[in-house]
C-alpha cells in the first residue's frame, strides 16, 4: 500500500510523461472495448432481424442463400414456389400463419417486396416486436405502396408521393414500370432491420406490373395494358419467391420442415431461421474475430509503449532508486515499486479508456441506430468488459516486470550512492 502511494507520487512528479502513457493506453483500451461493444451490438442486431418465424420456405437452394434473400433481401431466386403449393402449405392445419413474399423489382436501389396484409400483422423482429406505421396505413388499393423508414428518409418521400418501380434487381434499371405508377400510403417506423430499406406492395401489384410482360420483356407499346385495364384481369400470382411460416406450436416446426424438404411435387427448401442465422453469423464472425485481434494488438502496442517510456526513464531515476536503497528499501521493494507504477498507469489507462468508450457511444448513440441499422445500447460494463479491463491490467503488470527487473539489477550494481 505504501509502495503504491510512493509510486503514485513518483508518477505525479513525471506528470506529462505519465499522462501521455495513460492516454496511449486509454485510447487502445477504448478501441478494444468499442470493438467489443459494436461486435455484440452487431450480433444482437443481426439476430434480432427476424423473430417469431418458425420456418422460411423457398424453392430449393442453399439455406444461407434462402435466408439472405428472404430476410436480408440480398441476392436473387432462381425459381419460385408455385401458388398451388403455397396455398396448400398455408392451409395446413398445423400452420398458424404465413407471409408470402415476392422479390424481383427495385425502386431506386431499394428492393420491392410483394406481400399481403399478413406481413404487417405477423412479421416480428427484435424479440417479438411487430411493425408499426409512422404515418399512413397498409396498402389496400392495387397501386398502393408502403415504404420502410430509410427509403422515406433517403428519398424524402411522404404519404401520397407517386413513385415508379423498375424491373429487375440491378442498382440502375433501364426498364421502368412507368406506365403503372404507385402511390405511397404508409411509412413504417424504423426497425433497424432490412425492412427499413424495402418498398412493400401487394402480390397482386407485382402481377399487375408484369401482366403485359412475356418471357421477361415488355409487350410492344400498342399491346400494353393501362392501369384501369389491368384491374379487370385475374391477378392471382403464379407463385411466390418464398414465404415465412408461423406454426401453431414450435415443436411442429421440425416435422413440417422435414415434410416440406421431402415434398415430391416441387423441389422446396424449408429452413429454421434461428439455426441458419447462427450459421451465417459464424461465417461473418471470421472477419469479426480479426477485428478483435487487431484491436487487442493495439492494446499490446500501448502496453509496450508504456514499458518503453518506463525503461527510458530509468536512467534518470537511478538517483531516486539509490536514495530509496539508502533509506532501507531492499531490491525487491524497487522491483515492486516499478511494477506498481505500471499497474497504476494501466489502471488509469483502462479507467480512462472505458470512460472514453462509453462517452463516445453515448455521443453517437443515435447515429448508428439509424444509419447502420445497428443500435448500440449503453449498459453498465458487463462481466466481459470487466474481464477485458482486468486482462489489460494483468498484462500491464506482466509487461511492467521488464523495467522492474532492469531497475532491480541497476540498484544492485549502483549501490547506495550516485554522484554527479
Amino acid at each position: 500500500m505504501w509502495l503504491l502511494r510512493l509510486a503514485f507520487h513518483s508518477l505525479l512528479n513525471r506528470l506529462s510523461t505519465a499522462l501521455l502513457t495513460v492516454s496511449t493506453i486509454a485510447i487502445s483500451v477504448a478501441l478494444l472495448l468499442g470493438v467489443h461493444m459494436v461486435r455484440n451490438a452487431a450480433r444482437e442486431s443481426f439476430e434480432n432481424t427476424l423473430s417469431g418465424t418458425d420456418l422460411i420456405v423457398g424453392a430449393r437452394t442453399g439455406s444461407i442463400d434462402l435466408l439472405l434473400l428472404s430476410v436480408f433481401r440480398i441476392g436473387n431466386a432462381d425459381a419460385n414456389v408455385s401458388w398451388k403449393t403455397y396455398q396448400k402449405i398455408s392451409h395446413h392445419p398445423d400452420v398458424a400463419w404465413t407471409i408470402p413474399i415476392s422479390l424481383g423489382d427495385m425502386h431506386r436501389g431499394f428492393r420491392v417486396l410483394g406481400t399481403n396484409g399478413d406481413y404487417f400483422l405477423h412479421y416480428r423482429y427484435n424479440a417479438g416486436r411487430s411493425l408499426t406505421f409512422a404515418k399512413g396505413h397498409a396498402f389496400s388499393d392495387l397501386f398502393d405502396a408502403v415504404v420502410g423508414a430509410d427509403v422515406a428518409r433517403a428519398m424524402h418521400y411522404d404519404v401520397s408521393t407517386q413513385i415508379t418501380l423498375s424491373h429487375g434487381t440491378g442498382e440502375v434499371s433501364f426498364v421502368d414500370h412507368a406506365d403503372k405508377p404507385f402511390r405511397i400510403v404508409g411509412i413504417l417506423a424504423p426497425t433497424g432491420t432490412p425492412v427499413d430499406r424495402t418498398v412493400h406492395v401487394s402480390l397482386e401489384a407485382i402481377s399487375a406490373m408484369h401482366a403485359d410482360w412475356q418471357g421477361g420483356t415488355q409487350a410492344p407499346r400498342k399491346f400494353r395494358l393501362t392501369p384501369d385495364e389491368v384491374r379487370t384481369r385475374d391477378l392471382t400470382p403464379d407463385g411466390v419467391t418464398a414465404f415465412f411460416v408461423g406454426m401453431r406450436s414450435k415443436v411442429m416446426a421440425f416435422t413440417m420442415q422435414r415434410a416440406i424438404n421431402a415434398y415430391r411435387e416441387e423441389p422446396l427448401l424449408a429452413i429454421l431461421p434461428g439455426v441458419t442465422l447462427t450459421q451465417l453469423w459464424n461465417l461473418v464472425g471470421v472477419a469479426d474475430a480479426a477485428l478483435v485481434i487487431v484491436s487487442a494488438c493495439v492494446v499490446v502496442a500501448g502496453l509496450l509503449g508504456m514499458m518503453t517510456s518506463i525503461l527510458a526513464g530509468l536512467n534518470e531515476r537511478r538517483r531516486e532508486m539509490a536514495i530509496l536503497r539508502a533509506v532501507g528499501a531492499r531490491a525487491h521493494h524497487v522491483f515492486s515499486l516499478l511494477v506498481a507504477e505500471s499497474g497504476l498507469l494501466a489502471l488509469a489507462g483502462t479507467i480512462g479508456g472505458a470512460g472514453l468508450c462509453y462517452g463516445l457511444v453515448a455521443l453517437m448513440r443515435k447515429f448508428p441506430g439509424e444509419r447502420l441499422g445497428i443500435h448500440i445500447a449503453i449498459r453498465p460494463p458487463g462481466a466481459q468488459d470487466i474481464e477485458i479491463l482486468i486482462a489489460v491490467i494483468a498484462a500491464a503488470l506482466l509487461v511492467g516486470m521488464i523495467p522492474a527487473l532492469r531497475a532491480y539489477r541497476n540498484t544492485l550494481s549502483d549501490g547506495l550512492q550516485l554522484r554527479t
Partner: protein
Amino acid sequence: MADAPAIELSQLTFAWPGGRVLLSIDRLVLARGERVFLSGPSGSGKSTLLGLIGGVLRPHSGSVRLLGTSLLALPPGRVDRFRGDHIGFVFQSFNLLPYLSVMANVMLPLQFSTVRRERLAQARPEEEASRLIHALGLADRDIQERPVHQLSIGQQQRVAAARALIGQPEVLIADEPTSSLDADARGDFLRLLMTECARSGTSVLFVSHDCALSDRFDRSVALHEINRAT
C-alpha cells in the same frame, strides 16, 4: 551482543575486479556511541570503504562486522535488511526524494524497517519526525509540508540527517555531508547532528576531507594512515 562494537573491520582487503588492491586495513573499530572522524584526500578509497561497511561491496578478504554480526555471513537480502534496520546514511547532496514532502522524506526509513518503527515506542512517526526536524534546527512549522525542492541545500542536509536518525539506528554514516554547505551552516549542522547523536547514543562515522571539523569528534582517523595498500 549489546556490547559488541558498532563497526569492526579486520584484515580487510579490497580490489576492483582486475585492479590493484585499493584497500588493505588491519583493523578499524568503532565502539558503541563513539564518534569518529575519517579523513582522507579524494580518491583515497573513502567511498569504497563505506560501501564495504554498508554491505554493498564485498571485500576480497577479511571480515566486516556490524554490531557483532558478520555481514559476509548474511545472504544479500539480509544484508539489505540489516543495513536498513541499523544504519542511517547522509550523503553529500541529493539525499531527498523530490516528490515527497519534508515529513514524508523523514519518515521513509520507517516504511522499510519494522525494527526502526518499533523503536519509536509510544511516539507516533509524525511526532518523532517533527521532533527531529526541530532538533536539527528547522523550526519553521510550514517547512514540514513544503516540497523538498523549495528548500536550501543546508535545509535539505538537515532533513537528510533527520531521516538518517529516525528510529534510532545504532550507526550513522555521513559521507561529506557538509561539503555543499558554507562555513556557518557547516558548524551549525555539525553541532546539532552531534547533539542528536549523543542523545540517542548513535555511533558516528563521519567522512570528510575537511580536517578543520575533526576537533568535534572523539577520535580522528586518517584513511591513508591505516590503509597499507597505498
